[in-house]
């Protein structure tokens, strides 16, 4: 039964010569032996011959040339640059592409700004503004020198004292000039 249904569904392909040799032979044997499938075959053959007859008589009256010319024209015609640009804009500025583009840009910007946080040992992170900034300083009457050296990004706070104000009780004397 299953074979009968299978063959019946493929009778059309068999008649059109679309089956492999083995399948075509199996279909031929079954159709010759099965009255139902044999009837199906005869109906398809009658339909086929009817269609051929219709095309033979009426096909010559159909005007195919203008139709094919229209198809050819549409294939070969070149579009204007502004139409192509419009298509590109439409394709770009449409969701969901743009909806994902905005967070993607945000992620890239945040990632760029967070390089120092996630990769603190990277050269760019350590070299970028490594200067220490002195916001306030009180040395209680002592002299102080502040050095900010560009090349090595060094900030030095140096305490020193005038000889006149040196504490006499102190065994060690502070230098009278900064060390740089």
């Amino acid at each position, binding site marked *: 039964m299953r074979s009968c249904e299978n063959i019946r569904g493929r009778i059309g392909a068999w008649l059109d010569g679309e089956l492999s040799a083995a399948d075509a032979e199996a279909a031929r044997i079954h159709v010759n032996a099965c009255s139902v499938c044999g009837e199906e075959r005869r109906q398809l053959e009658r339909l086929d011959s009817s269609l051929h007859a219709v095309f033979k008589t009426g096909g010559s009256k159909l005007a195919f040339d203008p139709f094919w010319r229209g198809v050819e024209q549409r294939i070969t015609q070149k579009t204007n640059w502004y139409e192509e640009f419009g298509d590109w804009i439409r394709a770009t*500025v449409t*969701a*969901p592409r*743009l*909806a994902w583009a*905005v*967070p993607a840009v*945000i*992620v890239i910007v*945040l990632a760029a*700004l*967070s390089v*120092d*946080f996630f990769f*603190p040992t990277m050269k760019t992170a*350590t070299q*970028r*503004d*490594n*200067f*220490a*900034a*002195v*916001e*306030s*300083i*009180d*040395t*209680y009457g*002592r002299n*102080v020198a502040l*050095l900010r*050296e560009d090349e*090595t990004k*060094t*900030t*030095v*706070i*140096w*305490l*020193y004292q005038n000889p006149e104000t040196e504490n006499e009780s102190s065994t*060690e*004397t*502070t*230098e009278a000039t*900064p*060390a*740089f």
Partner: protein
Amino acid sequence: MNLLRKLLKPRLLFSVLLFAVSSNAAENSNQPVHLKIGTILASNQSDNFDTRLKPIAKQLKVMKYRSYRLLKEDSQSVPWKENATFEIPGGRLLAISPQESKNKQIALKVRLTEGAKPLLDTTVRLQSRGHFLLGGPPHEGGALVISISASME
């Protein structure tokens, strides 16, 4: 209008908010600050350079001393607004208190005392893992140079 509606999709808003919150959280971290102190004796009594000071050799060379010797190294983790104290040779004390973090920079309040006598009060803002030098106090014929670095853990 249609485009605007698409842009205001909840999924998109959620993404933006998530990133905003996460970046803000990194800035206002409650993690303690790791402080590292190196006390160095700078002098002109010899030409020796302590090899342990190689990582900051370039910075030390801005001073006109011939010899640098690392006397002691110390490190402490300290919560924000609290004090970490370090003993400095010569009966001195260095108190450091991290005040705030802004633009990935740490503001440190630094106080150096000698006995009961204050020598220096300063507020310095430095990059996380950055450092600065504090020098001048005399010691053993030379001068002490204190390297202070801070990092957010």
